């Protein structure tokens, strides 16, 4: 198991490098620089700024310099928010996304896994209802659901605030979490159901029944582990997406999350901020893929052979 983990870790490094390089190249290729939109500034001031941020050096030199900086864990300064570095900006924005994204995924698993398992085990009308609900959930885009639930709960019924962070008070979390969780619940239900359906058809489940095991023992003891393998594959990138924030949710509910900073950074040509978020995202994805691989190997020992 340890060797498997190590081999997956080694394979992850090139992917991360590719992501960093791709982002770097795209940003540098783009026309315009970080200081173009400012009020016209004297040439020597601009030259000094560019020299300070190493923007006057050759591209390969900038690239290497950046890699070195990353190795120290420093995501660099922000060209736009000059008083704070990228690390600080992310640290400010992260709690918002962690709270909302984390709760949304938790809700999705708490509702979706039992629902999917039940749909697969019982079949019949439970399955049909679960199927309809989950497919509807996938078909409804977030940017449609979010305004609609604001319309219903904040405007018509006036039960909850329409947006804002409110220091993280629970009232402000309900609507964003609900909007974000809906598609996740749908996906989790579908994937869990598919996983269970596949597992329950396997011969070893029939053999377990022939041994006299109770339905509970079969579902939880024998069917659960192999059924969760496809779900784990889905949750990896989903967790990363949830943590790095949904741009739509943040803008609809007026939240200052990482997504918002990213968009502002892109519009302000704040290379450093955009790169910083991209690198964070890339690193998280690589970690998530690693975690998925390891978790799958834990759930199904046959995976370790590949």
């Amino acid at each position: 198991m340890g060797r498997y983990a190590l081999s997956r870790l080694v394979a992850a490094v090139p992917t991360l490098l590719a992501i960093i390089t791709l982002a770097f190249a795209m940003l540098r290729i783009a026309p315009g620089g970080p200081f173009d939109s400012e009020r016209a500034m004297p040439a020597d001031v601009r030259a000094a700024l560019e020299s300070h941020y190493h923007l006057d050096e050759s591209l390969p030199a900038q690239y290497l310099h950046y890699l070195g900086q990353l190795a120290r864990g420093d995501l660099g300064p922000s060209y736009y928010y000059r008083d704070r570095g990228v690390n600080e900006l992310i640290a400010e924005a992260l709690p918002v996304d962690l709270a909302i994204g984390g709760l949304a995924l938790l809700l999705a698993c708490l509702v979706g896994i039992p629902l999917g398992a039940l749909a697969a085990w019982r079949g019949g009308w439970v399955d049909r209802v679960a199927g309809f609900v989950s497919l509807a959930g996938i078909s409804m885009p977030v940017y449609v659901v979010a305004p609609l639930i604001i319309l219903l709960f904040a405007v018509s019924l006036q039960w909850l605030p329409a947006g804002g962070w409110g220091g993280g008070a629970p009232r402000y979390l309900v609507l964003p979490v609900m909007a974000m969780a809906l598609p996740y619940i749908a996906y989790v239900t579908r994937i869990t159901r598919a996983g269970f359906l596949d597992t329950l058809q396997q011969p070893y489940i029939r053999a377990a029944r022939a041994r006299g095991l109770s339905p509970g023992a079969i579902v939880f003891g024998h069917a659960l582990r192999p059924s969760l393998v496809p779900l784990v594959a889905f949750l990896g990138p989903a967790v990363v997406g949830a943590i790095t924030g949904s741009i739509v949710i943040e803008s609809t509910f007026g939240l200052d999350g990482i997504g918002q900073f990213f968009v502002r950074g892109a519009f302000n040509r704040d290379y450093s901020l955009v790169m910083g978020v991209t690198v964070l995202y890339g690193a998280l994805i690589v970690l998530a893929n690693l975690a998925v691989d390891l978790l799958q190997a834990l759930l199904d020992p046959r995976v370790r052979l590949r």
Partner: protein
Amino acid sequence: MKVPLPRVSLALLGLLVACAVLIPWLSPHDYFTPDWDNTELPPQWSGGHLLGTDELGRDLLVRLMWSCRISLLVAAVASAISLVIGLAWGVVAGYVGGRVDAILMRIVDVLYSVPFTPFVIVLTVLFGRDLVLLFIAIGAVSWLDIARVTRAQTLGLREREFIIAAEVAGLSRPAIMWRHIVPNLLGITLVCLTLTIPAVVSTEAFLSYLGLGAQSPLTSLGVMLADGAAQMRSRPLLLVMPALVLVTLVYACNRLGDALRDRHGL
């Protein structure tokens, strides 16, 4: 036992497609000419504005159907392109195997990890708002799933006797891929298509909603959703109707795709 196709979804889809295709002949109103005498009408029978008009006096129902038409058109074209790219990619990767396979699929993996929304935003910032950009953005991601699926199927087909027979007979690799493998993938391809189209419709709607896709006077479901969201407190119908059409379209396509997939045992 063949899984029966979902009739309701098929009917709804048929209805939407029919409306989208026939709309130029169905109504005297067009979708872009403002009518300042009739702005912001509620749904009514007289005057032929069955769902009312928007803030520029344009008939809502007609705009809705045109939006459907344009969204479906974009989806069809983009899906077709994705299909060709994905099919070729997957078949080559699956059949040739080895190093080529590893490289091709690694590219797919990296592209798969790219978060779509930030990617599109960066593209817009860099290259401005352009309809072509819309196609590029959509095209860049929708072929990935198709590539994965066709590769998996090709891996299975590769070991079958008729392929080995063709190889023994001395057929060249491209010939085998084109004449033997691809025809056997057509069933799967159809399934992928029915699942790609709703994804592309959703994506196009999203991009248009962000203002990055279809520009005025062109309309699409995304554009109508954006307009509707902006006016939702005063006229919720402007949001609810396009939302209903989009959700129904995507739902029906997905439902159909699921049923077809069950049939093929995918």
